[in-house]
């Protein structure tokens, strides 16, 4: 039964990918964004490449994965396509999982390019087994966060976009992307509440400059995954009736 539900959530993923992601402009901006960020970082600040690359990786994964996921629910509400999904024999958690898997795979695809570019163009060895596991966990985690953000039962995608920016922007600043956690002094406490902190930290591991051990990073990311997924399902369930 559960396995069958997983299969059905893949149908949701497929639908999301073909409606929202597999479009020229979306793919292109997903790929160009890290390139622009990289250029801005390199020319704008006097930071070492060793510091920049993990920051860039963390930020790109975070931004691409959580960009489209949040607008799916308000969009379906507005287009009145949600009622049919909900009345089909697929559990709400499986619908949400399907939406998460869509941004998840989009994020992994973009990250793959950064991995390849960093190895081929920059000759840097940031990829390790723990980073691969970490990337998978983080992509799922940020994607789930996107579905937590989309829980308010509005039919206006731009409301959710606003909320999404309000949450994501501060997160980037507190996650050790621009300033290493070690140099944050007493402020580093607030960086602990952001899952992005642990992913960026993990990405620094092979190059050096990490703050936590990879095991801690992975465990905390796993914890955030469970937390965000549970909250997403709970909140969407609570608000479901208001979407019709």
């Amino acid at each position, binding site marked *: *039964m559960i396995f*069958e*539900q997983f*299969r*059905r959530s*893949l*149908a*949701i993923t*497929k*639908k999301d990918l*073909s*409606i929202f992601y597999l479009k020229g402009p979306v793919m292109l901006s997903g790929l160009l964004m890290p390139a622009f960020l990289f250029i801005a970082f390199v020319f704008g600040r006097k930071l070492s490449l060793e510091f920049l690359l993990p920051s860039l990786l963390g930020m790109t994964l975070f931004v691409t994965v959580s960009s489209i996921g949040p607008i799916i629910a308000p969009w379906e509400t507005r*287009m*009145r*396509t949600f*009622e*049919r*999904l*909900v*009345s*089909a*024999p*697929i*559990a709400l958690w499986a619908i949400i999982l399907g939406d998460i898997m869509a941004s998840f795979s989009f994020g992994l695809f973009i990250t793959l390019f950064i991995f390849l570019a960093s190895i081929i163009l920059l000759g840097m060895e940031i990829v390790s087994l723990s980073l691969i596991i970490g990337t998978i966990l983080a992509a799922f985690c940020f994607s789930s966060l996107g579905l937590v953000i989309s829980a308010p039962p509005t039919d206006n995608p731009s409301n959710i976009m606003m909320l999404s920016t309000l949450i994501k922007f501060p997160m980037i600043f507190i996650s050790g992307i621009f300033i290493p956690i070690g140099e944050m002094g007493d402020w580093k406490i607030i960086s602990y509440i952001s899952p992005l902190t642990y992913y960026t930290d993990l990405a620094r591991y092979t190059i050096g400059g990490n703050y936590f051990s990879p095991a801690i990073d992975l465990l905390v990311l796993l914890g955030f995954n469970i937390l965000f997924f549970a909250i997403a399902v709970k909140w969407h369930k609570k608000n479901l*009736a208001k979407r*019709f």
Partner: protein
Amino acid sequence: MHAITAENLTKKFNGFAAVDDVSFTVESGELFGLLGPNGAGKTTIIRMFTGVLKPTGGTARIGKYDIQRNPLEAKQLMGIVPEMANAYVDLSALKNLLLIGELYGIRKKERGEKAEYLLKLFGLYEKKRQKVKTFSKGMEQRLIVAMGLMNDPKLLFLDEPTSGLDVESVILVRELIREFNNNGTTIILTTHNIEEANQLCDRVAIMNHGRIVAIDRPEELKRTIQSTTSIEVAFTTKVNAEELMFDNVNEIKKVGDKLRLYAEKPEDIIPILVKYAQFSNNKIISLNTLAPNLEDVFLKLTKNEGK
């Protein structure tokens, strides 16, 4: 076993009872109509049966399954054409159907065949690879009905399936409804089109203000209000309604340039009308006796049994 059962079904929105303590059953193979004016609570009932809304009280059962307790098993059995739902406009007609097939766990080969079959049945085969965005409203509505049939349901909920369709599509959809019903599918149909209910349904429940005010076969419903047998009469010179208020006339209504007289025994009224015409030097241009129709039942019930 009943196909569906409503037991004291109630739905409140912020204290307002949209559906108020409704109980009924539909037998398998029946074509059952929910008829009522706007806001009567038809869609709310359907949404409780399809697991979209949680009842405030009572239970909705699909076969032996309580929709709240075994939602997945219950939903697997039914096909749904929701009232306000759309197809995905950015997907093609074919992809919309295949998506539904996947959501119901239909195997790949089968769902491909079923989708093609339905596309042909609903006259959309030529446009199967076009995005639904490019469809007319009627084409999209036909696709939506087709989507409700992807899983070969034994039980089909149709919430105003013919709204927004042109005459030709209405006829197509009605014929298909009959055909599916003849092949054994139980159908729950909501409509405010009385003629549609009259033509299609084995039984009709008339709803008003969240309650069922009458439930029976269309012919029986008509019989229960014999007093609405009426005569329609038109004179060459216009006549005031009050003048025709004879002893055994219950009610008079003006209908266009005609007058409609309601009476228990219309046959007694006719000679009186003829005498009246002679006496007042007037002439009768037309005279019709009308059997009660479902519209009369509907109007009578939804007026009297209001709040």
